[in-house]
């Protein structure tokens, strides 16, 4: 053994200046690009709004995806209805394209499980996954299910760069390669895991090369180029759906803001790095390119921003109008049927929240 199987291609079509590095893939039309652009602008608007809601106490801790819209949109456009998406927690864009409503997304981060009643193509998709990298093996299991029923669909899972250090990541890739699973794993390499930069996360010079440990293909793409992300994911999904096995894709991007609204990135990273990263962000470059192609004009931009505002505002209004759950709702979904102990606890809870013993507003009572 003197060499290893390895295919580490680095995809990029549109560079940071909105210039073509290579001709666009043939399936990428102007309409496609305008649609991708609209989705990215929408998600950025949503993101901004949710952060604002958090600052005014109407939202809980929220992980912004600012700067990583091309990854989510590229994935979302490549997925087909019957593929299964296994998200982590920074996947607003893909969720939206799967048919999860903006309101549901806000509901989850507003602290309400009912947001997970995913609609649209997402109805079989997995819920957001917070324990880092644990979703990787779920996705492998989903792929096993698809494969065992010979369904021509794929599972697609996302994770962060930090997640590649956790054992689950390796365990899942190893299985996927071994069992030739219809699984595409996409790393959102935003170069930070909260305060830990990638250089303090691994000595591997790329994350794509982690595929070699499993004996599978690893691909690296410019995660700020929605065409590159889409193209690589689309190819990988087609490969998976046609029984040709799994792929690992590293999408290199940058987290342009705090880890979450609970974080303060100025404590640990240089603003200069962030400013530099803004030069490479995905929306501007696509806008520049569309303008250069005369495929987009200021009037369209104004109309888009207006449409986006309307859509986001409506979603926010619906979010803010959500009624709270009943006091005993959380007891009802533990098992398919209520157990004896839970029924007793439910009775207790009903009494507890029916009295005016001060427990009506337990936060205040405390």
């Amino acid at each position, binding site marked *: 053994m003197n060499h290893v199987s390895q295919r580490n291609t680095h995809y990029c079509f549109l560079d940071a200046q909105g210039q073509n590095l290579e001709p666009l893939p043939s399936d990428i039309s102007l309409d496609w690009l305008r649609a991708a652009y609209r989705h990215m602008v929408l998600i950025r608007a949503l993101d901004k709004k949710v952060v604002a809601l958090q600052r005014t106490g109407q939202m809980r801790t929220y992980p912004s995806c600012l700067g990583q819209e091309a990854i989510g949109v590229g994935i979302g456009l490549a997925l087909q209805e019957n593929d299964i998406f296994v998200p982590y927690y920074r996947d607003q864009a893909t969720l939206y394209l799967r048919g999860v409503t903006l309101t549901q997304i806000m509901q989850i981060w507003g602290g309400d499980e009912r947001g*997970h*009643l995913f609609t649209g193509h997402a109805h079989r998709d*997995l819920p957001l996954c917070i324990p880092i990298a644990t979703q990787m093996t779920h996705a492998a299991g989903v*792929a096993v299910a698809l494969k065992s029923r010979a369904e021509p669909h794929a599972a697609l899972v996302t994770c962060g760069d930090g997640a590649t250090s956790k054992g689950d990541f390796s365990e899942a890739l190893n*299985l996927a390669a071994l069992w030739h699973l219809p699984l595409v794993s996409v790393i959102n390499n935003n170069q930070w895991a909260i305060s830990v930069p990638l250089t303090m996360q691994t000595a591997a010079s790329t994350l794509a090369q982690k595929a070699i440990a499993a004996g599978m293909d690893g691909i690296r793409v410019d995660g700020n180029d929605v065409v590159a992300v889409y193209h690589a994911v689309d190819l990988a999904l087609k490969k998976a759906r046609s029984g040709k096995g799994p792929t690992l894709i590293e999408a290199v991007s940058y987290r342009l803001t705090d880890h979450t609204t609970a974080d303060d990135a100025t404590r640990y990273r240089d603003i200069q790095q962030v400013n530099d990263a803004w030069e490479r962000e995905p929306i501007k470059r696509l806008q520049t390119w569309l303008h250069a192609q005369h495929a987009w004009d200021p009037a369209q931009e104004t109309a888009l921003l207006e449409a986006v505002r309307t859509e986001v505002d409506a979603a926010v209004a619906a979010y803010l109008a959500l009624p709270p759950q009943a006091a005993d709702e959380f007891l009802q979904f533990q098992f398919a049927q209520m157990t004896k*102990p839970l029924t007793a606890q439910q009775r207790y809870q009903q009494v507890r929240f029916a009295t005016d013993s001060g427990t009506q507003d337990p936060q205040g009572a405390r």
Partner: protein
Amino acid sequence: MDARELTMVEAVTLALRRAMLDDPSVVLLGEDIGTNGGVFRATEGLKAEFGYKRVMDTPLAESMIAGMSVGMATQGLKPVAEIQFMGFIFAAMEQIVCHAARMRNRTRGRLHCPLVIRAPFGGGIGAPEHHSESTEALFAHIPGLRVVIPSSPVRAYGLLLSAIRDPDPVLFLEPKRIYRIVRQRVTDHGKGLPLDTCFTLRQGDDITLVSWGAAMHETLQAATQLQQRGVSVEVIDVATISPLDMDTILSSVMRTGRCVIVQEAARNGGIASEISARLAEDAMAYLRAPVQRVTGFDTPMPYPRHEHFYLPTVADIVNACEKTLEAPSTTAWRPYEIF
């Protein structure tokens, strides 16, 4: 439908096979479960019968086994995963606690997790370190998980069938010390046993013995010894230790007024403590003596040469019962110590 004299591990195999015949979505996975039939032979013959797509030898990674089972379960399969020994389940803990036990609640019923994790457990077979744990209490404290422990071939068959058919995650712990100790006639009738009730194995009026798993074996022997001395003993096999059916235990103890709980697991924070606390809360007025617990020690199981120092014996149980029976049926109790 022929009934055969089976050991508990054979009854496990029978139930697995029945579940696989009845439901094509049932698949098995784990380390060495395929060609080798599992290190205890619980899956013997099943790969030959059902093929490698339904009996999957996995790479060596418990967290992956549990995690992929979660993924499979959300998409319509019914994975029955084997953890080779319960001592190796801890790598899978994150998946069990954070995902298997929460998928339904988190998605408000949109997805659910009908998986079974089987694991042989308990001491007394002289196996190496980590092969003799009884840590069922850790899992009983996890909301959303059923923890089921058979103590006879018939119950192994019926409870495992119900566990596999259950739409929610079940940890099915198999007391390996009694895998082959008793044979029982088991009919492959395909009927499950309920997962929400204890089993009253003997009826009596003077004292209630409560146990589960391998320790049932000593508990029954102790009951026999006591009965020979004229004590009327009720014996309850808890079987599903979580969610706990206290009704059966409470109504028994309210009648007998005396109770000894036997567990092999470490003493502090075990299931025996939960049962004892519940008895004290809900049946205090009926107790003629404090409930006693006969348990393992607050140490890991010693290496095999000395594990007999650890395990509760028939004599230990009989002693505890005698103390309990001697107690005056008044409130003249003074604090005392078993431990």
